[in-house]
Structures are given as structure tokens and as C-alpha cells.
């Protein structure tokens, strides 16, 4: 990666809104063609970072570039090479889906025929062809979101910024967005996407930056991060309260880590490295101890647990 110029660079970006520090020394380097996830809770500074990178917001200090063009000094050149899909759908409600895409296509300086053709292709691709001539006012939230995404893809940008692209989408639409992102990267587009879901970052991103309070607190490939985070978790919901200590002891033995217990929900939970092995050992162990489980589940750590591990602050976890 050393000889290739990075597609996106951010160095020590700072941005404050009055008293609020939204970016506090934010750094990012994304290699061409990579998918980079920005993972963080509400208010972490994800949108602010994306807005700076997409030339919408001037940082107070620090510098950033897209495709080698400084986002402040050479914003215009950068804009030819980036697409932005903001956190909230930004389309004209009074126009139809097709009219929206043609309008934006024309503003990318496509010829009228090319703008029309591109609008048709994108509507097709995002299952909006049937509703393409209805005004956006009549679209559902998910349809709007897909149209918004289509508008960001008009030029097949060199770098695409997606701010929480799947928030509010149904599973099918979410899968379509994921598929679209994969297709784009296969065609060489670099993608920077923000998300609050580790699952999503894990599915799409080759590298993840975990953001908190306007700075990156951890960065790496999903596998690396998960190793640091303590991998997946196993949750066991018991039938009787009284079994809680025994079950916790069994789980501690299998997981090799101290489980957390939640008596209210009769839940014991522990991180596990080898999902399947842990499961196949736990179930017989529970039944030979005479413990009835109502539910046993393997799951990815939540964002809260990720933060718990990365910040090492036990108080911060929310049950």
C-alpha cells in the first residue's frame, strides 16, 4: 500500500461546534478500492467526519484529501471524484425518482441522453423502476433511501461516502444495499461507510475505525478488532434463577473468561473464541448438570460491548 496514493486521507482533523468538540484529532487513511467502516455510537463524530471529507464542512484544523485533492483547497476537483449518501435522504420530494436522478445527472454534467439512460439503469438496479415516475413524496422511507443511494452512484464515483446507509431499511433492502456496495468495490470504487452496527462493518468493511468522542480509538481488520474485542458471545437464558451460579461456573470453564450474569433476565453471557466448539460443549454440560435452558444463542458483540473492551471502562456498559 506504500507506493499507491491513498484514496482518502484525513490528518488530525478538528472541528468544534461552540462548546461541542465533534472531531478531536481524527485520522483516517483508506487505500484505493477498499471498504472502510467508521463505527461509533450516536454523537461520536461520524457524520461530521464524512461531511468534512465530502467537502461540505470546513475543518477548524487538520487536512483531508480525496483522490489526492485537498477537500478545502481543491474542493471542486474532489467533488468530481466523490459521491455522498448522507444520513438523511436528500432528494426532491416534488420530483419523481426518475426526475431526481436526471436532475443530479445533469448537474454532474452528463448529456441529457446520458443522464436519462443512467437514471433508468439506477432505477432498475434499486428496484425503483415501477415507482420511478411517482413523486418521491409518495415513497416509503426505504424507497427514498434507495433513491438517495442511487443518486450517489450516478458517476460511479472514485470514492463513495455512505453515512449509515442501512438505518431504517428492511432486511431485504439492507441486503440490496450491501450487494450494491460489493458490486461497486468490485468495479474499483473506494467506499467509506459509517455504521452503528458491528455486524454491518464486519459484513462489508476490510478495515474498521472505531470512533468515540471525535477520534479513532481503534483501527484494524474486523478479525483483528474482534480478537481485541473478545470475539462473539454466547448468551444462555435459564429456566430457574437458582441455576444462575452453576451455569456461570460451567460457562466460565468453557469460555475461559468470567461470564456476566443478569439475574433479572436469568441470563449468563460470555465471550467465546470458537463459537461452535463452545456451543457443542455447553449444551451437554448444562443438561448433565440438570439445568434447563430456555434459550442458548450465539451473537456478535454489541457496540456497547465493543466499547467496553476498547475503553476498558466497566462503568460505561449499558445492559
Amino acid at each position: 500500500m506504500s507506493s499507491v496514493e491513498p484514496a482518502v486521507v484525513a490528518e488530525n482533523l478538528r472541528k468544534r461546534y461552540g462548546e461541542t468538540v465533534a472531531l478531536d484529532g481524527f485520522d483516517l487513511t483508506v487505500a484505493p478500492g477498499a471498504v472502510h467502516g467508521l463505527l461509533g455510537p450516536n454523537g461520536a463524530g461520524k457524520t461530521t467526519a464524512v461531511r468534512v471529507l465530502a467537502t461540505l464542512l470546513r475543518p477548524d484544523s487538520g487536512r483531508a484529501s480525496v483522490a489526492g485533492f485537498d477537500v478545502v483547497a481543491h474542493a471542486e476537483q474532489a467533488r468530481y471524484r466523490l459521491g455522498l449518501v448522507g444520513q438523511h435522504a436528500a432528494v426532491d420530494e416534488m420530483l419523481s425518482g426518475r426526475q431526481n436522478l436526471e436532475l443530479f445527472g445533469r448537474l454532474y454534467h452528463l448529456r441529457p441522453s446520458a443522464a436519462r439512460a443512467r437514471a433508468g439503469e439506477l432505477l432498475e438496479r434499486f428496484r425503483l423502476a415501477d415507482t420511478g415516475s411517482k413523486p418521491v413524496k409518495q415513497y416509503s422511507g426505504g424507497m427514498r433511501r434507495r433513491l438517495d443511494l442511487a443518486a450517489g452512484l450516478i458517476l460511479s464515483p472514485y470514492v463513495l461516502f455512505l453515512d449509515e446507509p442501512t438505518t431504517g431499511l428492511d432486511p431485504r433492502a439492507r441486503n440490496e444495499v450491501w450487494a450494491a456496495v460489493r458490486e461497486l468495490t468490485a468495479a474499483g470504487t473506494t467506499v467509506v461507510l459509517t455504521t452503528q452496527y458491528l455486524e454491518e462493518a464486519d459484513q462489508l468493511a476490510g478495515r474498521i475505525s472505531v470512533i468515540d468522542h471525535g477520534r479513532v480509538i481503534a483501527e484494524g481488520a474486523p478479525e483483528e478488532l474482534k480478537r481485541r474485542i473478545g470475539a462473539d458471545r454466547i448468551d444462555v437464558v435459564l429456566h430457574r434463577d437458582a441455576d444462575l451460579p452453576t451455569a456461570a461456573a460451567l460457562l466460565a470453564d468453557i469460555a475461559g473468561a468470567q461470564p456476566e450474569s443478569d439475574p433479572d433476565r436469568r441470563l449468563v453471557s460470555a465471550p467465546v473464541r470458537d463459537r461452535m466448539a463452545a456451543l457443542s460443549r455447553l449444551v451437554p454440560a448444562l443438561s448433565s448438570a440438570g439445568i434447563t435452558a430456555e434459550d442458548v444463542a450465539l451473537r456478535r458483540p454489541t457496540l456497547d460491548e465493543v466499547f467496553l473492551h476498547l475503553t476498558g471502562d466497566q462503568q460505561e456498559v449499558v445492559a
Partner: protein
Amino acid sequence: MTALITAPPRTPLARLRWALADGWTVTRRDLTHWRNQPLQLVAGLLFSVMVLLMFGFLFGGAMFVPGGGDYREFLVPGVLALTMVFGVETTFTAISTDAARGVTDRFRSLPMAPSAVVLGRCTADLLSAVLTLAALVLAGLAMGWQWHNGVAGAFAAFALLLFLRLAMLWLGIYLGLVLRSPEAVMALQILVWPLGFLSSAFVAPATMPGWLAAVAEWNPLSATATAIRELFGNPGWGGQSWPSEHPVLLAVLWPLALTAVFCPLAIRGYRELSR
């Protein structure tokens, strides 16, 4: 896949062509709005015509023009000027809706000429003003209103009207960018309507109590209304004060002053979006 990446134009002439083309694209967006929702456009025009008819026929009987003359001849120029001032609501709604919905940000992330949004807004709003004026002129003619000073006077009058509308454009853009909420148009109406009535649009300021009369005389709306009455050769209200004796000058100065204040503020409003 269309992966066509164009570079921004370099020569000044190419940049100008590019800015005009983008401005026209943004204008066409409004034309498409009208085509998609013709009823909304028609309702807007009907509203202005209704104000004219209401005052002409319902209240007109009780009104008199101080210098003598037909009230409807007095009224039509007043309503023409009034609708130009009310145009601020159209600009405000368009600008604040785009800002609230993120469309402004979308435009800002595109490699389009930054001036295109303003140019497009300006062209679309002036076109809509021309349509409104046309509807009112037709209704006025049907009511018996006429211009008496020839085509040149009439042209000068329409130019002053559009000049006032242009000044309102900057105010609308500025307020739209500051408030960024289309719902605030209600508040704007509460401010604009009294200004509309506190003018010489419907009645002679001479009929108002002292300080209200002064406000009504100096009101930019009155300046344009009085000026175009003179240019159309319609009866005025014949005040003795400086504003009523120099209406044309004031109808140029007021929009100039409003533009001088709000055009820079509007441009700053756009700059502030990236703060």
C-alpha cells in the same frame, strides 16, 4: 457502467457557460415542479387574483381615492406591488425546504457551479412573478383597469415591480438559510401581511393615524405602488411628503438598499453552511 469523470472547465468563458447551464438545470427543476403539480401553481395565481377581486368588488364600494378617480384603477397597481412583496414567501419556502431536506447539501457535494443554485432560484422566482403579474393584469383589465401612459410607461412599471421582487429574493434566501425550516413560513406571513396592509396598496396613508401613516408612506411596497401608479397613469393618493413626491426614485432606492443588505447576507448564509 458510466464512469465518466469530467474535469471542471478552465477558461473563464467555459466556466461562465457551465454556470449558466447549471443555473438553467436548477431553474428547470422548478418548472418540473409546476408541471408535476399544476394545481399548486394555479392556486397561487388564483389567490392573487382573488385578493384583487375581493378588494375591487367587496370592499371597493366603501373605498374612495383622495385625489378623485376610480378605486379599481388605484387598487390594481397596489395589488401588483403587494404580490411582489409576498413573493418572499415563495423564495423562503423553496430555500428552507431544500436546506431542511438536505437537497442543498446534495447540491454542494456535486461538481456544479456554486452560483447555479442562486441563479436557478432567481430565474424560477422571476418567472413565477411574471406569471402572477400576467394573471393580475388580465384580471385588472377585465375589471376596467388600464394603463394610460403608453407601452413605455407600462414597461418601466413592470421593470420596477420585478426589481422589487428581486430584492425580496435576497431576503427570502437569507431567511430561508438562517431558519432552515419550511414551517417558519407561518411566522413570515405574520410579519409580511401587516406590512402589506400598512402601505398604500389598498388605502391612502392619509386615512391612517399619524405614525402609522408615516410607516405606510415609507414602506418599500408603497414606494413601488405609488411609482407604478404614476407610470401607468392611474390615480394616486396625492400625499405631500417626500416619499409621495419622489415615488420612482424611492422605488429604485428601496430595492437597491434591500439588495445591498440582503444579497451579501444571503451569500454569507451559503458560506456559513460549511462552518
